[in-house]
């Protein structure tokens, strides 16, 4: 189960809406081993594409170093789907390299109602998990 504060959910949705129709991507860092997402980092989608995303490599290194210095890890890795449901695509599964992370997908295909769902992706196997939102 992903337990996450309301303001972090709102921030992911706002980011996804802002970058629509391109895919938005980012991560939420938390203390190593805590499974608690705390610090949201919007990442540049180097692909600037409505069908693909990739963290900008230079920014990824910078954020990785920050997280190491703070004893943090990526608790959540999120991205948006702008024309399809919030379910991992074949490429999402292929490139999922963080078995400890919650993969959050946000669909912005509907202009009013968003869809936000969370998954574990381990060795090519997708497992959806409940999302518990804590009012902040």
């Amino acid at each position, binding site marked *: 189960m992903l337990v996450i504060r309301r303001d972090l959910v709102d921030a992911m949705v706002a980011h996804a809406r802002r970058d629509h129709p391109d895919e938005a991507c980012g991560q939420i860092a938390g203390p190593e081993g805590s499974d608690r997402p705390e610090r949201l980092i919007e990442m540049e989608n180097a692909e600037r594409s409505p069908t693909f*995303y990739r963290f900008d490599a230079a920014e990824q290194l910078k954020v990785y170093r920050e997280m190491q210095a703070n004893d943090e890890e990526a608790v959540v890795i999120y991205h948006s789907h702008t024309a399809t449901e919030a379910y991992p695509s074949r490429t999402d599964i292929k490139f999922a*390299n963080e078995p400890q992370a919650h993969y959050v997908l946000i669909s912005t295909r509907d202009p009013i109602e968003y869809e936000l769902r969370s998954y574990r992706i381990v060795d090519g196997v997708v497992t959806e998990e409940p999302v518990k939102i804590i009012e902040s």
Partner: protein
Amino acid sequence: MAVTVSIPTILRTHTGGEKSVSANGATLAEVIDDLENNHGGLKARLVKEGALHRFVNVYVNDEDVRFAGGLEAQVKDGDNVTILPAVAGG
């Protein structure tokens, strides 16, 4: 030339769980060959058909090796090599 190589979580099965290991070489290709000698299986995760995998980022200190010669990138004694799988999808 001895360098320190940071290993991402997903590849630590090849290093017995170690987050960073040391390796020798004057170029990234030599460093990867040396890694392979001590941590079998790593090379295939990094190199495909004589080039770096498209979805693996490798940095020497702060520089993305894609802009520094790829596998031919030079390394110096004491450099830090960081491997980060691309975070990508569709």
